[in-house]
């Protein structure tokens, strides 16, 4: 019932969050939040309208439809669509009402296990168990986007010698996530004698977790469709060979073991894997309805019902190769083994990118040696991809430190899985002491 030339949909969202702040002494300030909202969106020849209202009841939908109809001047289709079933219960959920107590106890135990001795340590962490349920109503039907439950932790670890950012995310079942969180935190708070890396060009071996963030910045963001033609160094060269033969990079929202998964995107398009790099060539672009219309490949994502969807990554996956990690380190010779990246940024237009490294070891004569202080790695996307070694690690592992990706102010959960990679000729730089 949309007018000719118009497309559109309605979206319902329910978000439940149980959160705690944590210090070195334990969990504080429990909080429970439930937020629901409805959005109606209409698109017509480059124009789009989004009306958002609190609540997911009939009244919110009616109010949003009424306002959308008033502004768009059309007769909206939503009345004709029979209300579907309630959104599915989030996968991996530890339940809902009234079951915060076991979650709280489980997290407290995880924290105590990770921090057996808090002397000399200060922690300021925000821990949240997030359950998200979304459904989209299009003229063709009612689509459940798929429940998404995850454990998110971010904050700062302080020691006398400096502070470091900490982030963790897992969409595994809660008990498993808590155990992984404890392991990651125990690893992060371990004190280590640290040296500053030498500044300048350096060869780098990325651990699987760090490699997932490297691919996220250098391939994922540049291949998110944006308004305007050729807005990134990779989208300007479709089909070009930009990396070693055999390199495959796929954005896969159907990997339900990773935090960026969904069944339908936030515009009701069925999720599907999209190969971005195939055999070293640029082979795809992530699109939504605004950038590709009916040809959208199901990557229209929004952080919440109030924001319009945009073409964004879900889970960036690189299949494993055959080289064991020690073989890559040996092949590197002298360089750096990066284990943890706290943040990254890329300018797809110029191709410049920077990765902020929190955890790394020096590599000397093909062996891991002393730990290094935090530093930044930068490069230019096209030249860096040319320097990716054709051999890659034999295990593709989920990135626990890759959690929320912020682009254009919109924060979304994303995932990644990659094997270790050797990348030559990146540039290291240090904040001198």
């Amino acid at each position, binding site marked *: 019932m949309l007018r000719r030339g118009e497309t559109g949909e309605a979206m319902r969202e329910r978000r439940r969050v149980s959160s705690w702040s944590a210090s070195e002494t334990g969990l504080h300030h429990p909080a429970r939040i439930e937020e629901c909202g409805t959005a109606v969106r209409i698109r017509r020849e480059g124009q*789009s309208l989004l009306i958002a209202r609190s609540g997911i009841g009939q009244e919110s939908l009616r109010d949003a439809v009424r306002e959308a109809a008033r502004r768009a001047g059309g007769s909206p289709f939503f009345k004709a669509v029979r209300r579907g079933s309630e959104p599915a219960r989030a996968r991996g959920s530890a339940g809902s009402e009234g079951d915060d107590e076991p979650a709280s106890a489980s997290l407290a135990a995880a924290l105590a296990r990770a921090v057996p001795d808090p002397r000399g340590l200060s922690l300021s962490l925000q821990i949240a168990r997030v359950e998200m349920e979304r459904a989209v109503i299009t003229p063709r039907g009612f689509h459940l986007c798929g429940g998404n439950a995850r454990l998110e932790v971010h904050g700062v670890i302080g020691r006398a010698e400096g502070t470091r950012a900490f982030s963790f995310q897992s969409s595994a079942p809660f008990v498993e996530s808590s155990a992984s969180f404890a392991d990651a935190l125990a690893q992060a708070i371990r004190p280590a004698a640290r040296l500053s890396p030498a500044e300048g060009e350096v060869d780098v071996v990325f651990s699987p977790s760090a490699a997932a963030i490297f691919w996220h910045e250098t391939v994922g963001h540049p291949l998110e469709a944006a308004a305007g033609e050729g807005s990134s160094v990779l989208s300007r060269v479709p089909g070009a060979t930009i990396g070693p033969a055999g390199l495959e990079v796929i954005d896969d929202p159907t990997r339900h073991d990773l935090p960026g998964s969904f069944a339908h995107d936030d515009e009701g398009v069925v999720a599907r894997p999209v190969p971005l790099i195939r055999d070293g060539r640029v082979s795809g672009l992530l699109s939504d309805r605004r950038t590709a219309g009916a040809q959208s490949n199901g990557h229209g994502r929004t952080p919440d019902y109030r924001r319009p969807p945009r073409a964004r990554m879900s889970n960036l996956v690189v299949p494993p190769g055959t080289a064991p990690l020690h073989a890559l380190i040996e092949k590197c010779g002298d360089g750096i083994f990066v284990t943890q990246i706290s943040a990254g940024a890329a300018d797809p237009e110029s191709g410049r990118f920077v990765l902020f490294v929190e955890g790394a070891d020096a590599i000397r004569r093909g062996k891991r040696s002393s730990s290094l202080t935090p530093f930044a790695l930068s490069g230019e996307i096209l030249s860096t991809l040319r320097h990716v070694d054709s051999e890659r690690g034999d295990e593709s592992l989920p990135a626990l430190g890759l959690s929320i990706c912020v682009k254009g102010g919109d924060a979304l959960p994303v995932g990644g899985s990659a094997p270790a990679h050797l990348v030559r000729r990146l540039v290291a730089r240090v904040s001198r002491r």
Partner: protein
Amino acid sequence: MTAPARTPDDGLFEKLLQALRPEGLGPGHGFELYERRGAGLELTEDDDGHRITESRERGFAIRLFRGGRVAFAASGTTGSTGLQEQARLMLPRARSRRGARAPVLIAGETAEARPATEPSLPDESAASELLTTFRRTITAAGEGAVSVREASVSVGTRGERLATSGGRDAAWSTHGAALVATVVGRSSQGRYSARVVATAARAEELPVARLARHAADRVLLPLTGRPALAGRADLLLDSHVAAHLIGRLAPLFFGDQDEALLDARTRQGRDPLTSPVVSVIDDAGAQGGPIRTARDAEGTPRRRSLLIEAGRATGRLTDVAAAARLERPLTGNAVRLSWSDPPRIGVTNFYVDPSPGVSPLDLLAGVSKGIYAAVLLERPEIDLAADRFRLAVAGYTIEKGRAAERISECGISGRLSELLRGIAALGDDLKFVAGAGGGVGSPTLFVPRWKLS
């Protein structure tokens, strides 16, 4: 503002408040009930067309207090009647912390007991005019080499009400506006894009022309300049660059959160934190600041707080709990990122006092050989505990008091304490940027003889 207030008050706040009275809650408990009603409009233009986003929301949050324990629950209208029970169930599992209590009436304050204002929808045509002005200004500032890939103006207004077991019952309104743009610079050297942001308390106060000039510099300097040579040079940090640097000091003043760190940086107050020419203030009423509100997230009336006086750390930003723990004045610095977030300590407009400053041109005239850092190319890397920082900037070389060559990239790094104590003079050109969860501001800063990397 165009659209009139629509929904009459439905008495839901009063109903929730009634249920929270001691007879419904049990002895020894304190409570805080909060309601927010918001309306926002965002107009976005890009190469493919334009988007209008209009939203209305309403949410409730409850905090229960007992013996230093706090539990928080929040929900929209539908689930609001269950909030009290959720918070009550969580309360025994919270850890006790000294100072946690429900806000009380302060001297001279009276309970207002009036409903939160239903916010009106902001004016769409005014937002459209701002975008047109921004496009026109950036075309001129970039001399045709800069285009706008996407620009959006968002304008919002909200009505808030808060009532506590301590007798506080207050309602107030706040407004905010932001202009966000992704701009692209083109030259024979290639392309460069950047996202720039300006925020203000009202749409008509958005610094559109300043943002356009800044955006043009942000994308053209990296393309048209040359990398700076390493060595010692005098530094002039533009107010944009300086504001982001100064803003990163804000957590040092968040109650007792980083007290040990502040003590370590100042040797328990024996050393200054910055040069004596620097005083830092937090003030929700600061001229030009993007935050303007009568009360904080706990309903405490806002006040001006002097945090660094002539280089020495003197004040702290407090909420009710931190003020009680530190036995310091209540400064009204509790903030809520949204109605569904628990209050925490944050800044309003956190800025370097420009009153002892001179004209930036006078600062420039005094530099014989130096660098003018006009824009930040990346987020600043600042580690307060390790006392180190790194800024990646672009700008101009200065020779004999005049701007000379363009600089595409320059690293400024070293000990943060040395930089802050080395500030020799200030400009009088205070400007604010969005940062530290509020507004952060600084005038141009002059630091002589800094080693560039």
